């Protein structure tokens, strides 16, 4: 049941309505039942895995919390984390590890065909596993107490708005809201019209990003990437930029719907995207992109490794390890590792080149706060991110390298054939207009909440914005799509 499916359009209002009608004591159970139903609609057989991860992490946290001794606490936490990660490793990385081992062995002259299992990655596994691991680490570190109420903890892991693709929430965020007895947020929060309005606005924005931009650009991307050698440099650049926008609008759109849906129900999820393509450096990009994951890696991997506290060299090692693992988290394939590695290298190179950059800026008397310089830095950062995304989108590292090499060696300024990439000129125009709306929204978002601006408008203007947004999605969105003009070839009466 995808967020943009007709089923969700029925499911969500029913769940919300019932949620505010049932007595407060029953709300947790109701949301848990709804969340498991939501998951069953995707992946009925893997609900067992969700339950197992829930039970194991729940028990490990309780066992950790009972001990005062640090070694015991760490022991139970390590055991809990290992058991929690076992499912993720098996389903996501078993084949990758076996193939890699076989490749390494064949390198040293030993031929060994590793076992290759026919596995389907259970939906949301990477997300809820990481949430459970973060929770166990928090309990171990005394940041939070172990949750004794199994239903509440199960809801923390399975809460349907964020179950499938995050945001990966924290014990001091979502779990704390579920624990709190009173207040504006959480299980006891009353229905709030203004909160609903804000949540709905965010959901509509998410739908716009997903259906109007991401799914439209996906047509172009899916046309070019699989046969990149047939296209010229401009087409490949167009596909690469389109993928940068597609992945932002796809994931950012999903996150907006998730956060909006949770907000309507009275829960505040972590921010996940904060105008990432307006970043002026790669480091800043990672403070704005997939925030719930990048902050997770910061808090539970980079800082425990020593962060930036142990000298420059160690900081770079920690950075590379974090980004390589992050790449692997995104996909069990070397091109994802290369994507992560590239982002690590960008940052190390940025550190190394900083003195030279400073000297150049001083020599040229560049005012760093001036808008033109900011635009140059923003475009440069976007270009670097886009190059890295090619590794993310490609089927393999070799394909990504081939794609970039062809893009660099077949450059021309001709736009001929740009309408032959799966989108006709009207679709390109629609995509361009929608991206312009996104750019304006992101620029405004830098200065404050766009929702606040909309809600402050007089009623007619506000309603006009609502209708414009909804009908843009209904008319220009990529959905349904069974209509085929060739089936309507017969003319009218005379």
């Amino acid at each position: 049941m995808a967020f943009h499916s007709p089923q969700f359009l029925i499911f969500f209002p029913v769940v919300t309505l019932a949620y505010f009608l049932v007595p407060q004591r029953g709300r947790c159970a109701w949301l848990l039942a709804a969340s498991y139903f939501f998951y069953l609609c995707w992946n009925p057989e893997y609900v067992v895995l969700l339950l197992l991860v829930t039970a194991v992490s729940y028990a490990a946290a309780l066992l950790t919390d009972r001990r005062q001794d640090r070694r015991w606490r760490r022991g139970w936490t390590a055991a809990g984390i290992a058991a929690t990660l076992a499912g993720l490793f098996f389903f996501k990385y078993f084949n990758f590890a076996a193939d890699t081992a076989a490749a390494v062995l064949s390198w040293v002259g030993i031929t060994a065909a590793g076992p290759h299992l026919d596995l389907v990655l259970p939906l949301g596994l990477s997300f809820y596993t990481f949430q459970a691991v973060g929770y166990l680490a928090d309990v171990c570190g005394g940041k939070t107490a172990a949750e004794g109420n199994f239903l509440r903890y199960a809801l923390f892991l399975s809460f349907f708005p964020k179950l499938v693709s995050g945001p990966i929430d924290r014990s001091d965020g979502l779990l704390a809201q579920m624990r709190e007895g009173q207040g504006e947020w959480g299980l006891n929060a009353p229905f709030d019209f203004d909160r609903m309005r804000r949540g709905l606005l965010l959901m509509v924005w998410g739908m716009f990003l997903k259906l109007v931009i991401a799914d439209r650009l996906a047509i172009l991307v899916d046309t070019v990437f699989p046969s990149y050698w047939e296209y010229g440099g401009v087409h490949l650049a167009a596909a690469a930029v389109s993928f940068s926008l597609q992945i932002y609008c796809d994931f950012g759109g999903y996150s907006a719907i998730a956060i909006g849906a949770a907000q309507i129900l009275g829960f505040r999820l972590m921010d996940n995207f904060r105008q990432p393509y307006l970043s002026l450096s790669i480091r800043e990009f990672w403070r704005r992109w997939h925030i719930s994951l990048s902050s997770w890696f910061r808090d539970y991997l980079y800082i425990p490794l020593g962060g930036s506290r142990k000298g420059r060299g160690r900081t770079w090692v920690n950075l590379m390890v974090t980004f390589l693992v992050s790449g692997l988290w995104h996909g069990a394939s070397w091109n994802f590792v290369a994507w992560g590695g590239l982002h690590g290298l960008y940052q190390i190179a940025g550190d190394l080149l900083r003195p030279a950059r400073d000297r150049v800026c001083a020599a040229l008397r560049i005012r760093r706060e001036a808008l033109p310089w900011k635009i140059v830095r923003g475009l440069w950062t976007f270009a670097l991110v886009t190059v890295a995304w090619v590794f993310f989108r490609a089927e393999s590292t070799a394909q990504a390298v081939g794609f970039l090499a062809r893009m660099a060696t077949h450059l021309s300024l001709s736009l001929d054939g740009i309408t032959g990439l799966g989108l006709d000129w009207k679709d390109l125009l629609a995509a361009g207009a929608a991206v312009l709306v996104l750019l304006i929204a992101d620029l405004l978002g830098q200065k404050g909440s766009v929702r606040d601006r909309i809600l402050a408008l007089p009623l007619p203007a506000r309603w006009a914005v609502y209708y414009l947004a909804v009908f843009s999605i209904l008319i220009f969105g990529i959905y349904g799509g069974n209509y085929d003009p060739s089936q309507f070839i017969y003319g009218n009466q005379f």
Partner: protein
Amino acid sequence: MTKRRALRRLLAAVCFCALFCALFAGATQLLRNKDSAGAILSLYEEPRDSLDVIFIGSSHILNGAFPLELWHEYGIASNNLGQHGQSIPISYYMAQEAIRTQHPDLIVLDAYMLYYPDLIYEGDGNSHKSIDNMAWAAPKLRAIFDLFTWEDRWDYLVPLSFYHTRWKELSAEDFAPIDTTGKGCEVRLETTAYDPVEPVDPDYAQPLSETALEYFDRLVELCRTEGVELVLVCAPFLATAEQQGQMNAVGEVAQAYGLTYWNFLTRLEEIGFDPETDLYDYSHLNANGALKFTRALGAELAALGVPDRRGEAAYAGWDEDCARWREELTAAAEAADFPLLELK
């Protein structure tokens, strides 16, 4: 929140939803494909229970039976609910709609689709042409829930989800009113010349579609329950030997149910049908073929006792509609350089 504020919010929400529904309906109407829409929409322009005869079935009847020619020649008040590729299951629900709105004395079913391969419906476009133009009432909903899977039902329940991609092909015609002057028929003003086909032995029969027969059985039952006479007809077309065999088999089915069946494939000479001049393509009549077929059909209907309504006060507008339609038909034929038969 004060009671007054809550009421104000409720009122605003109601207004917002009402305006949303109006805009949604407007967007749907603008973006939907209007090809052949007049064929079914014309039904809703007639006063309730004013029609004596309603035609249902495929494009054979849609292109073949001209209600206003029937009016002109025999004073028969009819409407053509035929549609391109209208399968028998869809015709069954179309008959329900005809009975709901008009309760005619007679429903004439085009038998052609009884042979059609075992499909519930033929092509998304064609089923949409029939169902999207039906009014939101029980027959339409029954058809949607009976004939389609959930994936497709959504497209019928919310047609905007099916048609929204048409924003790219909108033209001035999408903003013009839908033409319903022909009372449901669709006229073909082109000719493809063919050699005559060899007629088969009248006893030669070929099997019919089981799905079509299942819904045909339901249609017969519906007409019996509602006291509507059901008649079967096969319009002329360039039928292969197998198709002639299938249309012969319809005769056996009609006999088994005790229904009247007019198989015009066996009466081509009698009505003056000429495959060189009367066909739009191998399967459909052009305007001249349709005029010949309609006149023969009118004679049969009159013989069955369908009343002549000419001169009745309730049908005063029909003469004017007829004159306008004939005028438009003549003008369109001239514009298309089509040698239209003389209109009597």
